[in-house]
């Protein structure tokens, strides 16, 4: 498995072509993804066509862009022209979007190769990738465990070495939690920092698209390509010098970067936290202290109400956002609609086209916006308001908040009850950032005794992704977790 740096060096020096590299990734997917289930659609032909075009450009001595020739896996709720976008739902089994999402346009402009569309929880609703209408996903570190969700396919694809980079989406933790479970880096950017155009909506006031990668640096590289350029004049922006930026961020520089950085750790995070995860969390505290950061424990009581408020609000938005799927102009439609009137027809289409979890949330969300339940909805909105205020105050005191990503370790795929009925617990440490709209990043923090990845989460003030990357890099270098890879080939076959 090659890193971005190695790939780009190879292209530049002509040791191998983009086509050869892409082929080797495709072969790996072909060989191993049967056991993982990370992809819904693999873009064999499109990826090779793209690779050949890039090779031609290279042969003419052209610059092929900051992600030139780098395979990227794209979550299947992000629209791609000519390649179906299913949301892992029967409802959109054959849906091909009329145009590329903005982020996909950006990827293509930067020279990236779209290698496939990744499996996920249906319409991004779930935290274990167990609600896909097509297939389950296995955690590359232990195939009997879940990869987390909903961006489980993207996280697994990066962990399994199917692609160095992936796009996910995060509405209540859907990038960070699978990143944590699969031992990769995932960023939920500030709400609005990355265009949602072409992201199939789940809960639009929470939805964000974000990058996933095996290292913090690669994650940052992808983020820089997909984020909206504020002062964009339509021309290409300056391309980052990857090689040199890697060199510059040597360990010493990281330490300098952490000097006097104020890091807050909420006490509430220790309640109900897995023992091993807690040890890894406390180890990170020590590393930051040793790096010169000013670490301080504080109380964030708002955290307890977050998952419930998030569930009410996001379900209510989902009920409305998913109303367009009536199976009439596109999408799943029952076989014999002749004798049905409009209401019965769409009722049948929606009942059969959506899976259990999606229907459950639509029903719940519909209830939550009925006048009878107004009290719940209003309470949830009030909590969201309070969270925003609390967060605003926090970032007067701290530069960053350090938290665990998930209260639990990756659990067995068979333990359905854990991801279907205990969801609020899984979102416990992630939904708060979506409620507030702030950026948060999950990076590998270590492994359990049984060899399962455990993530750590950093959150910052609005539009301070650079600070998150800096602090994450420091931790990454000190921990060295990224150097370990899951063992997939041969021995497990």
């Amino acid at each position, binding site marked *: 498995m090659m890193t971005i740096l190695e790939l780009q060096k190879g292209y530049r020096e002509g040791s191998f072509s983009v086509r050869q590299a892409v082929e080797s990734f495709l072969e790996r997917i072909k060989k191993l993804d049967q056991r993982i289930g990370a992809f819904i659609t693999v873009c064999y032909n499109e990826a090779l066509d793209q690779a050949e075009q890039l090779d031609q450009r290279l042969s003419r001595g052209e610059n092929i862009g900051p992600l030139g020739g780098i395979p990227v896996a794209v979550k299947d709720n992000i629209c791609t022209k000519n390649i179906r*976008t299913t949301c892992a739902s029967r409802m959109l089994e054959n849906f091909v979007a009329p145009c590329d*999402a903005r982020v996909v346009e950006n990827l293509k402009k930067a020279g990236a190769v779209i290698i496939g569309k990744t499996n996920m929880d249906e319409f991004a609703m779930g935290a274990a990738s167990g609600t896909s209408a097509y297939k389950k996903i296995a955690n590359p570190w232990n195939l009997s465990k879940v990869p987390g969700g909903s961006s489980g396919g993207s996280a697994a694809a990066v962990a399994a070495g199917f692609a160095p980079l992936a796009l996910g989406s995060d509405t209540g933790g859907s990038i960070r939690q699978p990143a944590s479970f699969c031992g990769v880096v995932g960023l939920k950017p500030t709400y609005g920092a990355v265009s949602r155009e072409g*992201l199939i*909506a789940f809960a639009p006031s929470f939805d964000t698209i974000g990058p996933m990668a095996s290292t913090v640096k690669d994650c940052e590289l992808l983020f820089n390509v997909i984020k909206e350029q504020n002062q964009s004049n339509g021309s290409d922006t300056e391309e980052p010098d990857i090689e040199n930026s890697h060199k510059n961020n040597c360990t010493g520089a990281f330490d300098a970067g952490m000097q006097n950085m104020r890091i807050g750790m909420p006490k509430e995070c220790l309640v109900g936290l897995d023992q091993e995860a807690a040890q890894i969390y406390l180890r990170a505290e020590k590393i930051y202290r040793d790096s010169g950061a000013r670490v301080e424990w504080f109380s964030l009581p708002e955290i307890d109400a977050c998952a419930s408020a998030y569930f009410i609000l996001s379900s209510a938005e989902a*009920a*409305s956002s998913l109303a*367009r799927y*009536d199976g009439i102009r596109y999408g799943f439609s029952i076989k014999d609609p002749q004798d049905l009137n409009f209401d019965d027809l769409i009722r049948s289409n929606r009942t059969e086209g959506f899976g259990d979890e999606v229907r459950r949330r639509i029903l719940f969300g519909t209830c939550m*916006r009925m006048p009878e339940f107004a009290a719940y909805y209003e309470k949830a909105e009030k909590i969201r308001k309070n969270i925003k205020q609390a967060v605003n105050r926090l970032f007067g005191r701290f530069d960053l908040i350090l938290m665990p990503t998930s209260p639990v370790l990756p659990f067995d795929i068979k333990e359905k009850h854990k991801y279907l009925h205990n969801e609020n617990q899984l979102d416990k440490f992630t939904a708060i950032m979506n409620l507030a709209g702030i950026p948060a990043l999950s990076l590998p923090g270590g492994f359990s005794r049984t060899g399962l990845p455990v993530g750590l989460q950093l959150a910052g003030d609005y539009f301070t992704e650079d600070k998150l990357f800096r602090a994450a890099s420091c931790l990454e270098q000190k921990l060295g977790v990224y150097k370990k890879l899951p063992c997939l080939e041969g021995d497990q076959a």
Partner: protein
Amino acid sequence: MIFETIIGLEIHIELNTRSKMFCACSTEFGAQPNANTCPVCLGMPGTYPVLNKEAVRLALRAARALNCRINKVSCFNRKNYFYPDLPKGYQITQFELPLCEDGFLEFESEAGNKKSGRAINHIEISRIHLEEDAGKLMHPEDQPVTLVDYNRAGVPLIEIVTRPKAIRPQAAVDFLKELKSVMEYTGVSDCRMEQGSLRCDVNISVRRKGEKELGTKVEIKNLNSFKEIHKAMEWEMQRQQELLLKGKKVMPETRRWDQIRGVTIPMRTKNGSQQYYITPEPDLPGLDLKSEIFRSYLEEPLPELRAQKNRRFMEQYNLSRYEAEILTQNKGLADYYETVVKHGAAPVDASNWILVELLRLWNPADNAEIPVSGKALAQLIKLVNEGTISRNAGKKVLDEMFETGKSPRLIIEEKGLAQISSRAEIEIIVDQVLKQNKDAVEEYKTGRTKVAGFLMGQIMKAGRGRLNPNVAREILEEKLK
């Protein structure tokens, strides 16, 4: 028993924008079905609305013209219900925080008793909000299918809601006419009812005079002209009064006006009650109406409205109320009138010609351009006043100008319509006529001066209508002395 009728109106007006409210599709009426659609207005997955600022600009113009208080912040909502003309399963509209609230419009209406003539009336506007239009369903008669045309889906609308008021149906119609004129004058909408760019639902209830509580309200839909709105309100008012007189109750319901039978009938409800829910619209940020761009819209000057223009025409041009009202009923016509005056026609002459002759040839309701320029009409009026042609010939010239667009002088020349004013020429004809009608001349001399009229008629006939009547009369009078 004396009843009073409480009427509230909900008026939907399509804004005069070139593109739709949240995408770049054209708003043109009458295109091929579904030609003006794109992934956004079709509600495809992954698409998001981007607000058309022109819609906000026009809505703010309406708000100011209707004396509303503009909210500091205005938010969008989703009205969620399933219907095939609604591609997203919800309509983007405004609920808690509309663009503006608490306005009013003054209008003239006949006062209750006929003797007192017309009076200024006043209806309060409770709110104006922005929303998107839905598509249109078509039910072809020969096939068991329903077709959907999404050209209208996403066209920007404002909904104007009035506060219920005890008024007669005629006054409600007068209000609507004034409202339509204000919307046209301010360029907010072209208000073509036949194309559905102005639609009105009526809420109507009756109660015994003196009662404090409102009666049960009935909503009437499917009203597509002022005439039908008037008829429907009168009919429904009667229906409700009769029910109350019989001691029965009015049901709260939505009824539709059956234009052919001239009755309101209960609407078939779509599968029981059509429930809908209002939720926030997370895809659109709230509008900060204090921000620079919206402030600049609010500072734009508003044009003179009809009521003001009406008053000015009466004062400045010395026109009667009747004349001024007709001329200002349509902004294009009012501007036309002023052009004719500017090109030298006396204000009263210009008004006469337009009211009597132009409106015979051109219907303001067609919204078409007047084919004869104001300058050309002024020339024609001048030619008639100078005696170059007779008033009658002038009419014919105007007809020809409408058809061919030629100048009045050219038409007069081509058709030989110029009047004969030369004394010598006219004298020859007068002499001839007197010679042929000696008996009449004798009669005149015996004192029956009435025959002068007959002789004058004979002279004009002999001159084939081209003689200047004033000169001819002068000569005739001299000869008869």
